[in-house]
């Protein structure tokens, strides 16, 4: 950690809570706290976990002709998109590959976009180039996620929201933008809070018996159990939305065959389908990690693992992987681990059911 890493408004609180800090996307972030990854993971599935995700980029977009202009940059359709509704979207490159995945929320008079930490500068430059007449700003708020079946009890003031809805909520004496969404597969919220009030808000929630702090380690295993792809691992600039299983993230009206089809970067290539992202379950106990090659029964290489761990919920190895487009559903394959074949099987996703409050 010799380079000057950035710190979130909750940095000192993490240290006080006994976090093990690691460099992540140019930030010093908590990997885990004293309880450790597995306990934090299981706590989130049973109660409520508090995550600092302030490293993510929070953009705000304003300007004349805001919606029509943004539709030139993103495969979205603002027609029928009500204020306070959040949607998942993609920033595509000219080859139809995924440059980033985004959470886009229509607010009163502006649009909020949450982008991946490592993509912040690149996304901002690209969005500004695609929409030179719009005004993009980076919000320096903290972003706190409260995730788990008891999150709604802790944030009762926002319990009226449904999954993928947003509204302003007054918390610890300040206006916060709350969305009912997250990255764990559980019901929960993400709260954009002014940096000045972030510690007070986190402390108030940590005082609740249902809430414990959860680090990036468990955030990764939670999202993998829910089969939520991670940018930079499962999604990248060479994978099309269809290949990544994200064709649904392109607004129906912007897909081929519709009157308003296309008109955004890479539109001609979104249906490209050379490979597909699948879930794999290990038949035995051997964990299979990112980078492991996948072989078919004849020993031919048919894919590669992009994320892999042992599911704390299931106690079994789980993976996301790209396989050749022709590989059948439920196919049995071998992953190569330390030069040895390890039997794995393509399964339906997610590995652990999502429990969103729809």
């Amino acid at each position: 950690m010799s380079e000057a890493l950035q710190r979130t408004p909750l940095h000192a609180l993490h240290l006080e809570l006994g976090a093990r800090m690691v460099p992540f996307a140019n930030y010093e972030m908590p990997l885990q706290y004293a309880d450790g990854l597995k306990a934090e993971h299981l706590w989130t599935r049973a109660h409520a976990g508090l995550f600092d995700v302030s490293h993510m980029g929070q953009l705000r977009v304003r300007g004349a002709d805001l919606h029509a202009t943004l539709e030139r940059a993103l495969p979205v359709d603002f027609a029928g998109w009500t204020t306070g509704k959040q949607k998942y979207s993609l920033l595509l490159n000219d080859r139809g590959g995924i440059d980033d995945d985004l959470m886009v929320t229509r607010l009163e008079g502006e649009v909020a976009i949450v982008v991946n930490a490592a993509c912040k500068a690149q996304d901002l430059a690209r969005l500004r180039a695609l929409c030179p007449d719009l005004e993009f700003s980076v919000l320096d708020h903290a972003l706190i996620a409260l995730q788990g079946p008891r999150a709604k009890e802790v944030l009762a003031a926002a319990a009226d929201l449904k999954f993928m809805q947003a509204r302003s909520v007054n918390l610890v004496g300040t206006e916060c933008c709350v969305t009912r969404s997250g990255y764990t597969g559980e019901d929960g919220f993400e709260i954009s809070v002014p940096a000045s009030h972030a510690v007070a808000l986190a402390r108030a929630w940590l005082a609740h018996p249902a809430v414990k702090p959860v680090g990036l380690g468990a955030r990764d295993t939670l999202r993998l159990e829910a089969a939520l792809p991670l940018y930079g691992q499962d999604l990248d600039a060479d994978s099309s939305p269809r290949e990544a299983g994200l064709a649904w993230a392109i607004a129906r009206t912007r897909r081929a065959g519709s009157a308003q089809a296309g008109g955004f970067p890479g539109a001609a290539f979104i249906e490209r389908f050379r490979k597909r992202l699948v879930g794999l379950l290990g038949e035995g106990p051997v964990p299979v990690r990112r980078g492991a090659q996948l072989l078919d029964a004849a020993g031919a290489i048919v894919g590669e693992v992009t994320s892999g761990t042992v599911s704390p919920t299931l106690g079994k190895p789980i993976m996301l992987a790209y396989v050749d487009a022709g590989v059948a559903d439920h196919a049995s394959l071998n992953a190569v681990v330390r030069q040895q074949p390890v039997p794995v099987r393509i399964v339906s996703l997610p590995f652990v059911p999502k429990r969103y409050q729809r």
Partner: protein
Amino acid sequence: MEVPENLQYAASHEWIADHGDGTVSVGITAVALDQLGELVYVELPEPGAQFKRGDACAVVESTKAASDVYAPLSGEVIAVNGALTDAPALVNTAPYSEGWLFKLKLANAEEVATLLTASAYRALAGMS
């Protein structure tokens, strides 16, 4: 974190119990386990396998990552802890007893002099 006085240590975070008859038991330290987290899988060498000091000879995996275990001394594997196949987390709960990994018959008893004492290992691990 416990670093028992009656054991010897390697800088790569293995502990060694010298049985005084040319054989040793080997495990991994509480310091290493604190970094790794709860183990979900342990891959042990085959009995009869020969290793030189410093060779990767086993793998321990937590939810987070896989880590190699190195032979702290040269020798032949004469026993492995089969209980870890079904209960890898035994290494976390009892790292210096039931969580042992393997036993070696030493090829060169003089190598024992290269091992660290508990206090030297504590210093190396940044524990005072």
